[in-house]
């Protein structure tokens, strides 16, 4: 995970993106940055332009106005170089040549990945590795037409991570997957982000995404109406106390506390990390405030999203 405040060149940079089909505007003035190691979840009601935005970001669709850069390279004017860093699944389930086996399909993608300017050959071991990672080893030599939807989706993710991308873009990656499959994709996405890969994924599963995304962009009516930094939200802790207002005043004076609020019977403070909780408890105790409970103040993304979309 990228440390907050650490300067980093955006892995994905969307500037002033507009997309129109005829007179119908699908995306309006989208600005968006995703840093290396960040998991950015794109959400919004159906038909609000998520897939169009993803298609523009991957270079499949051309913007009417604006530009998109992957690792500093324009995906539309310097496409081959920009996509050298990209792994993506833009349809759910992922699409493959059904007449070929899973292994053959991955080999095709490996060969194409090696065509990047300065690209290296993807070794056969890597194919076996990603198939094993996505639990598809048994299916590797079967034609894709025999795969279930979930298996195709997992093969899609295998193909996306095949060439160790620096930018991973996934459109509804857990669509059609069973709970174990969903967990598997979560682990892979988290692991890729930990290794410094910027991840963008579109999803409707807000409570699920809230557990591992760093940022959530809410897209509605073709506009990015809000960007929620979940890291900042999740750094909040709530203290059930006998005097919430008094507790808030005490907490506010602590140097590591960034923001304080009350929600009776709780005093809520943004501490910047779990390690600060004992210090906060000690200070409250010193000031004579009785603390009955201290716990993370989980941000309800679903409720926030509902409110935000209704207001938009």
């Amino acid at each position, binding site marked *: 995970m990228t440390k907050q405040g650490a300067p980093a060149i955006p892995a994905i940079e969307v500037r002033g993106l507009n997309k129109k089909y005829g007179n119908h505007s699908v995306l309006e003035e989208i600005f968006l940055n995703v840093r290396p190691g960040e998991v950015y979840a794109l959400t919004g009601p159906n038909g609000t332009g998520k897939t169009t935005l993803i298609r523009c970001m991957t270079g499949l669709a*051309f913007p009417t106005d604006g530009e998109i850069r992957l690792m500093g390279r324009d995906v539309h004017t310097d*496409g*081959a170089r920009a*996509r*050298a860093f990209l792994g993506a699944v833009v349809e759910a389930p992922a699409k493959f*040549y059904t007449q070929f086996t899973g292994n053959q399909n991955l080999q095709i993608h490996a*060969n194409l990945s090696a065509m990047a300017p300065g690209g290296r050959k993807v070794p056969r071991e890597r194919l076996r590795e990603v198939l094993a990672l996505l639990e598809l080893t048994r299916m590797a030599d079967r034609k894709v037409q025999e795969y279930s939807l979930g298996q195709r989706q997992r093969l899609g993710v295998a193909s996306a991570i095949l060439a160790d991308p620096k930018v991973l873009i996934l459109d509804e990656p857990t669509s059609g997957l069973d709970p174990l499959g969903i967990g598997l994709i979560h682990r892979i996405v988290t692991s890729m982000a930990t290794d410094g890969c910027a991840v963008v994924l579109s999803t409707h599963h807000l409570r699920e995404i809230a557990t591992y995304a760093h940022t959530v962009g809410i897209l509605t009516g073709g506009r990015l109406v809000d960007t929620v930094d979940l890291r900042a939200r999740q750094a909040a802790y709530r203290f059930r106390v006998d005097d919430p207002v008094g507790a808030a005043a005490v907490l506010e004076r602590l140097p590591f506390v960034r923001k304080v609020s009350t929600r009776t019977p709780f005093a809520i403070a943004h501490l910047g990390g779990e390690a600060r909780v004992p210090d906060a408890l000690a200070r409250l105790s010193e000031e004579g405030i009785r603390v009955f409970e201290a716990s993370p103040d989980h941000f309800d993304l679903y409720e926030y999203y509902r409110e935000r979309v209704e207001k938009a």
Partner: protein
Amino acid sequence: MITLLLLEFRKLLGSRSAKLALIVTFLLPLIWAFAPRLSALIQVNMISGWQLPAVSIGVTIQYLLPLFIAVTVAETIGSETAQGTLAPLLLRPVDRTKVIASKLIAALVFPFLLIITTVAGSLLAGIPLGFGTFTGGTGLGPGLFVGVGELSGGEAFGQVLRGAFLSGVVLMPVAALSLLFGVLFLNTAASALATFATLIVMRLLVVLPEAIQRILLTSHFGIYVQQGDIGQPLILLLIYTLGFGLMAIYAFDRRDV
């Protein structure tokens, strides 16, 4: 580029329409071996196996081969769009120009493959007639089937090769046109229909003045039997091929997928 070309040929030859076209063009000429009324219909007395390729090409080049080419080439884009496999291909670090250029090359080779199977089937059907020296013509050389005297097996083979090659060249613009429509419509049926409709409309334009007829693609479908200087029609066919091909590349380069 080689990677893309191999992939395109693999997909092309693996497609159902290509397989059907290759099988039909190979098997159709075999009918000539069992067709007692063939000589009566084409008003030529078949005396050599070398004459059957001309019969097969003549029968198929106006409609059947263009139809097979239009459908199969349109499918190289249309079926990829329908199956959703075009997008994953374009997500890879490959120039769009190279992707469509490799499709164009595969499309331009396909007419020659069909002509090869047509000629191979015809020669197989011609075995009972033999391939020795005969008096007459192959239908692809001077004097057409009547010929200009005695023709050795080697000379006849040369005429068949020339005719087959020119037939492939004649069909190249059809393949390029189908690819252009494929890029514009991203749909197999629409692209194949548009290609075929364009050819039919061109044929109907015989009502126009001769100067315009001379530049119509369909006016030169018979150059595979023409003798003498065929440079001008050949250049025109290559211009058509290049023009349609470049338009397909240009259209694909800025096409939302």
